[in-house]
């Protein structure tokens, strides 16, 4: 738990353990992500890959271990030189740098698309309504949905909803963006438009991204690193070429065969 010398990791998980009752989902997990790196995590369901993202987003607290975001501990704070469990205030401060896109969108149904985007910037970042709406419209334009600004989520298609959700996450200008199977709940013909938006964010460069997905094509095109997850551990990692074309592990091979045969 020391400050690293040299280029700082953007995301760093140290010895993370998490059990849901009897189920030991994350086992002594170590993971680092460099600034602006795009990491794709693949693996069978129940392997714990979604849980990693949820731990980083503070949706599930780890039983033990540390999460460090851009050099700052997320779950701990330093007091009198000691590392103690952090208070809510501290967690919120560090969490500011992280945003998440959910498999089931989780848009606020009682707010319009634009309002979905402006709520948090106004309440959390302190933007005025004008500033928030300006930023919101810009982002809606970027994801191709400027004309849907005053529509409610119930009136949008799945692909449109997810694009609004991505814009909502971007509105917070996060350093780290997490994507939990962003296209798994979409009809096949809507997947492309969402992947295009995510690719756009990836190519633009600055944001550190972690994606859990089954879209291998996307991984090949946009990922810097691919991690294969199974039973709570990383069993293989490397560049997309290494892991996807030429996996070392049998488990990885079996998994890829099953996924790609759809």
């Amino acid at each position, binding site marked *: 738990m020391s400050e690293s010398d040299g280029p700082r990791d953007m995301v760093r998980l140290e010895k993370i353990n998490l059990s849901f009752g009897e189920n030991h989902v994350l086992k002594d997990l170590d993971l680092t992500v460099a600034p602006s790196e795009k990491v794709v995590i693949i693996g069978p369901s129940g392997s714990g890959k979604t849980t990693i993202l949820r731990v980083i*987003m503070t949706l599930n607290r780890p039983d033990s271990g540390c999460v460090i975001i851009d050099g700052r501990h997320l779950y701990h704070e330093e007091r009198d030189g000691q590392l103690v469990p952090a208070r809510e205030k501290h967690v919120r401060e560090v969490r500011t740098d*992280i*945003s998440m896109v959910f498999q089931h969108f*989780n848009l*606020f149904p*009682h707010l319009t698309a634009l309002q979905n985007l402006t709520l948090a910037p106004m309440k*959390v970042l302190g933007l005025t309504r004008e500033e928030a709406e300006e930023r919101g419209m810009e982002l809606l334009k970027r994801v191709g949905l400027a004309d849907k600004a005053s529509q*409610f989520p*119930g009136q949008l298609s799945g692909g449109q909803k997810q694009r609004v959700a991505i814009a909502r996450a971007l509105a*917070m200008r996060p350093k780290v963006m997490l994507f939990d199977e962003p296209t798994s709940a979409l009809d096949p013909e809507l997947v492309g438009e969402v992947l295009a938006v995510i690719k756009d964010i990836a190519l633009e460069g600055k944001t550190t991204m972690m994606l859990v997905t089954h879209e291998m094509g996307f991984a090949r095109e946009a990922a810097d690193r691919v991690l294969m997850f199974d039973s709570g551990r990383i069993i293989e990692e490397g560049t997309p070429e290494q892991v996807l074309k030429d996996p070392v592990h049998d488990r990885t091979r079996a998994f890829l065969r099953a996924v790609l045969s759809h």
Partner: protein
Amino acid sequence: MLSANQIQALLEGVSLTLRVFALAAVLGTVLALLFGIASLSDNRVLRWVSRIYVEVARGASAVVLLFYAAFAVPILLGVRSGRSFVFWAAVVALGVNMGGYGAEVVRTGIQSVPRGQTEAAISLNLRFIDRLRHVTLPQALVVMLPPYGNLSIEVLKATALVSLVGLADLTAEAQNLRVQRAVSGPRAATSLAIFGTALVFYFVMAQLLALLFRWLEQRLAGDWYRGRS
């Protein structure tokens, strides 16, 4: 039928009934929100306190709470149990009773909001208070309104009990008229007319309350609810 004077007497009773109801409803709603939200807290103590409040507030009937508040509590506080005190004691008793039932309605309403909503709000780093105000409660409200409307009507009916502790509400005025009639002779209005009219007044108030809630449901639900997927 009833004379103008008698109708006026009943209407004065209605005025007190409505005053007790309105104040008790405000208190009841505040308590319902407080304890309803507290019962979902991460803090075990808060959860337990809410649970106890809900069980006791509901388990003790309105009438028991009313008598206790009006006659036993003054002794505890060392206060004289005058008319003004009994009025406020009644408001508190009915409000506390309503809060017990209301807290359950609030709790169910909040639990009906999908967890993903709270998670999205957390991912956007909204504070607990802002999550509640802007994400959870607006969605919970739509689910809460119908049972809350029924509850309000129950509270309105419960105000009739305050006549038993000496307040001059509609029921008490009806009782008064009945007693007066006994000394007024044959020309007086029948007790059928007296209690019948009182029942009709209550009926009208209850229906108006029901209409109010239906209107609220329409207004608050809004377009988004109907288009919701």
